[in-house]
């Protein structure tokens, strides 16, 4: 699993430019019964005709940056692709789709006025420094519209934790790849006609999954996502959202979806029976791909497994390997026939 995570998290794939992630996934799961649509979503199937259609879904894209401006001095202005807290960007290393390395900069503190020191630096005031000395030199390496993403290795921390970029949602992709490879020859053990969707463009408007849900019209969908783990500092208990080491978080409601209670409870009872850890996620205003499945075409019953990720949407997202393993087991328990252990 660590190897899978390393390959997937290292792949370059900001929203709208997921091709390299797709290539890695196809390499891991093979090409048999795997289909790539014209938008770039990948759908794999473990077919069992006549059973209800269940989609397991993870998104391939990560938050990143797009070049919007190149200054006369050769600095690269950029816009955010996906949601960021600007504070996580300063001094971070980034890499472009063409492999150009850079660092995110802004006015250094000793040049700031007292007024500027009191306010947060916004993305509009930040630039990527690629070491170019002029606009002409920069244009040889970078064009307007090029993508950048974080340049950050996967490393193991202590206590069963790993740090990487893009754990939201390559963690989900890695789990689905692993489940697919484990189950692909075992269709007779499954309760569903099982599909695996690796979707594009979740971080900016979910257009990938909207297409998938309208086109395939599943009966059930389980989304596998990254979520904020607020389990540090003095966060009050009810605002922790999700805690690391407690298994995947299942939601009853978020800002866009009221999850199907019977389906969610059925999954919980299977996890209880097999002693697989899970937790119930606290309410947040954010939405997930589950919203698109629930209301796409003539609707679907939806549930979610969210991986608790600390410092999500930063170059140093941190996840506990045990939670990834619990999520993998929980998915297998959810889709396997009841009588099979």
């Amino acid at each position, binding site marked *: 699993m660590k190897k899978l995570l390393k390959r997937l998290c290292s792949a370059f794939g900001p929203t709208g430019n997921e091709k390299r992630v797709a290539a890695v996934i196809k390499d891991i799961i093979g090409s048999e019964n795997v289909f790539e649509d014209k938008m770039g979503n990948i759908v794999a199937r473990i077919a069992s005709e006549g059973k209800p259609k269940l989609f397991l879904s993870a998104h391939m894209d990560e938050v990143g940056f797009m070049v919007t401006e190149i200054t006369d001095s050769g600095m690269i202005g950029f816009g955010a692709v996906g949601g960021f807290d600007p504070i996580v960007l300063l001094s971070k290393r980034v890499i472009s789709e063409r492999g150009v390395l850079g660092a995110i900069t802004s006015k250094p503190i000793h040049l700031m006025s007292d007024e500027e020191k009191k306010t947060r630096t916004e993305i509009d005031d930040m630039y990527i420094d690629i070491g170019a000395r002029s606009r002409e030199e920069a244009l040889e390496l970078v064009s307007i519209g090029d993508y950048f993403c974080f340049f950050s290795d996967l490393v193991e921390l202590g206590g069963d934790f790993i740090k990487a970029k893009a754990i939201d949602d390559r963690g989900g992709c890695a789990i689905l790849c692993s489940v697919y490879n484990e189950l692909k020859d075992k269709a007779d053990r499954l309760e569903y006609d099982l599909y695996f969707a690796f979707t594009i463009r979740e971080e900016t408007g979910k257009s990938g999954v909207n297409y998938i849900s309208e086109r395939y019209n599943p009966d059930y969908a389980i989304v596998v996502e990254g979520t904020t783990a607020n389990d540090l500092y003095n966060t009050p208990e009810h605002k922790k959202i999700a805690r690391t080491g407690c298994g995947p978080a299942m939601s009853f409601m978020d800002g866009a979806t*009221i999850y199907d209670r019977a389906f969610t409870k059925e999954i919980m009872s299977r996890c209880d029976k097999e002693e697989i850890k899970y937790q*119930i996620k606290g309410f947040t205003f954010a939405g997930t791909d589950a919203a698109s499945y629930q209301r796409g075409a003539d609707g679907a019953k939806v549930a979610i497994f969210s991986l608790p990720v600390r410092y999500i949407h930063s170059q140093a997202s941190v996840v506990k390997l045990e939670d990834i393993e619990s999520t993998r087991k929980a998915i297998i328990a959810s889709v396997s026939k009841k009588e099979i252990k």
Partner: protein
Amino acid sequence: MINLLKRLMYTQGVSGREGDISKVIEKEISPFVSEIWNDKIGNLIAHKKGNGKRILIYTNMDECGFFVNHIDENGLIRVCSTRGLNYDAAIYSDVVSENGVCGILIPETLGEKPTYENVFIDIGAKSKKEAQRRVSVMDSFTCVPRLKKLGATKYSGRPLNNRIGCLALIEAIKAIKDNENDLYFVFTTHAQAENYGSKTAVYSIAPDIIISVSIAKRECSDIKLGMGAGIKIKDIRAACSLSVIEMLRSLAEENKIKYQYEADEISGYDLSLVRSVAHGAEIGAISIPCENSHTTAEVIDIDDVKNVIKLIEVLK
């Protein structure tokens, strides 16, 4: 009719938890329709077969409410809520869970504007353990239902929005005879969560004409209680099809049904969403004037409701 209304209002059905209210409605209408079923997201769909135009008439059966989000050490309950929940109106109200546990909605500190972040439900539990014996995370709560007669023809209470729409549609289904059209009646779910119940139902039935039945907020248009059934012209995101507006107007005049036009200048989300999957079907809406919507003191006039029932009954 008022007894049935009371039964509909006293059956809890927060968005995503419409199982009980769906059963009550199903029992009322199943003798009057050819087939009836719940779809994947809980919409109750009833079909009265016919050879004419395929007409879909829908109204939502869910209501605003709270969900238990967390239980604190001291036994107080933290909540989140569906859309449309008016915390200013709900604070200090009696609340009741789907399992009948009673409580009160109280603010964490005095003087702050109440939101989901700073209110509790107090069920009188002395500890977390005691609270956990009576409620679970995910359970729904609503302000307690109530229905009071107000003067000669008005009624006040909650959740009139939108059980009054359910009542109108149920009574119309019972009254419709010899209608040659292919009629689908849908009691939708998730209206207080972006209205997607109606969207998925329209998608799967693919009707020629779509008519929504719902309350019209008096605060959002010139509509007045007691002045008859509302024929919707527009809301803030969608304009109704002229053909449907004209059909409803002429039916009302032919049948001497009291009506008024409604043009909502402030709210409305549902019709535009439905239109996005309607494949060009004509869309219109019949509305029941309502005051103080989304509070515990919603007011309707039962004479308006009777006009709405009559107008649905004569649809062709």
